[in-house]
């Protein structure tokens, strides 16, 4: 089977792999590169568990072919903590008891991150909209919404 080269930056480090043409970014990240933080919950684009940030935009890596990401800057939840210190969103998810089974959590955190990067002081409606492509079956969403609002408050307090 024809292999094609892909090269991109994942959480700040250069990655280069030969993959089969037509491989999704989800499979490339999980099976080739070993970043299993994006989860394959549906492979349909309907659950959001594989959400990653590509060149600053939230994308679903189950519907993205890896070879279309050459040269891209890709961010995943696995790369969010810096030097062993959790990102404020990760901290807030812990403090708000916003994880149960945890399978949706990396995708939720990615969706929340692009929101807070652009809208540091979001309204509840902003958070609801930002999370609307991500399915959670355990929590009923409310703790996750609260966690994102908590992270936003923590950020604005740090900035003040």
């Amino acid at each position, binding site marked *: 089977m024809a292999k094609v080269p892909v090269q991109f930056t994942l959480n700040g480090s250069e990655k280069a792999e030969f993959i089969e043409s037509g491989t999704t970014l989800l499979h490339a990240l999980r099976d080739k590169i070993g970043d299993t933080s994006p989860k394959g919950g549906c492979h349909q684009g309907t659950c959001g568990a594989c959400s990653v940030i590509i060149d600053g935009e939230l994308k679903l890596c189950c519907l993205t072919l890896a070879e279309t990401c050459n040269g891209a800057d890709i961010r995943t939840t*696995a790369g969010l903590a810096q030097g062993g210190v*959790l990102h404020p969103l990760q901290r807030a998810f812990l403090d708000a008891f916003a994880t149960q089974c945890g399978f949706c959590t990396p995708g939720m955190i990615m969706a929340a991150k692009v929101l807070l990067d652009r809208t540091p002081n979001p309204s509840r409606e902003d958070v609801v909209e930002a999370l609307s492509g991500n399915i959670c079956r355990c929590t009923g969403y409310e703790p996750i919404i609260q966690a994102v609002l908590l992270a936003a408050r923590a950020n604005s307090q740090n900035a003040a």
Partner: protein
Amino acid sequence: MELRKDYFADVRKDGLNEIGQPRPRLDSPGHVTGQTAYFADRNFPGLLHLKMVRSPHHHARIRSIDTSEAEKHPGVVRVLTAKDVPHNVYTILILIQIGPEDETVLADGKVRWKGEAVVAVLAETERAAQEAAARVKVDYEVLPAVFDMDEALKPGAPIVNEYHGRNYYLYDSGECRKVRFGDVETGFGEADHILEQSYQSSPIEHAPTETTGCVVAPEGNDRFTCYTNTQAMFFTLDNTSIILQMPGSKLHFVGGTVGGGFGGKVDVIVEPIAILAAKLTGRPVSFIYSREEEMQISSPRAAEKVVIKDGVMKDGRIVARKVTGYTDAGAYSRHSPYGAQKGAAHYPGPYTIPNVWIDTYCVYTNRTPSSAMRGFGVTIGDFALEVQMDKLARLIGMDPLEFRFINAYRDGDMKAHRQPTEGAALIECMQEAARAANWPVAEKYMTMSSYRKGA
């Protein structure tokens, strides 16, 4: 959330060091960093992918299966059919002596629901497995199917499952599980009003974000490690041991970190065939349900029909309750005989009623087999019971909450199953709910207690 410590303070020891403390969850840091290892996060060199060829028909005889084109397809390593499965006809509750064995791992001669597994294809890539699956030729003779429980129970209906020979499960008590307490007909005779109503539900999916699946790796030494998201490790291992006719000592199951279950991962479906595939190919094997399979192939919560006939007095006492419950098991038993029986154990609800008659049936139809789900055997029954309670209250012109107080079970009350009530707290829940919602309830109910003197 508010913890109301003032209720039942006399029977509870508070002030413990660890119990009752809101400690952070030890697993959450792994969740928020994406480091928690679910079964599918393990990768093995040479991993094969299993895809299932499924029945496009609700009910059909299989005239022939031709796998030759699939076997020749590039990337295909092995194609499995019923003859490859050592103990192909099984049922999972056989472990607690509930039979008969009534389901096939891979269809043999017949399919009984649309989506039933017929042929398993193993290939180097998912794509190759999908392409080969499309090349398997199965010649079906379509048979009449039955989807409606009432139709299925009529004489002359197509028989869904020959291992039962009738479209309902035969309990030791007969065609249904029965509870008989007091004399329900006498109760109806005394009642001021009688209300008989029918309730219906549709199948419901657990829809965990992580689909059902497993990854199997040969350990060498003729042992196999199965990384799985089953909800029941040994239950799955022991059933696998029966299906594969392999000593349990050859099986090693690793799991325990699951992306949501809700009862959807207690069937034993993916593990036996994946382990068989690993054994026959000597390769690691992955069998993970697609989302589509999770939604339509994995067992849902059964559809249920519940018929409730009540006799009620003008003063609010329910004097007789007759419940007939029907659980739509789909084509195979799985956990449904147990679930229907659990319904019989749950009715007539948390109320003290002197005359009770309960029949619960487990019915077979040509649909996706149903099985356990959060609230198994109870959830739909509670819907029926509590809507019925609302109707009864309105029928006699009584406040629906006060009506429940009158009938609520209390410590020492004899239940229909001939067990005295212990540890009741329904009254206190209703009192607190009335307070929280400013729902006016007469003082005599607000001062009731689940305790009874001497109980």
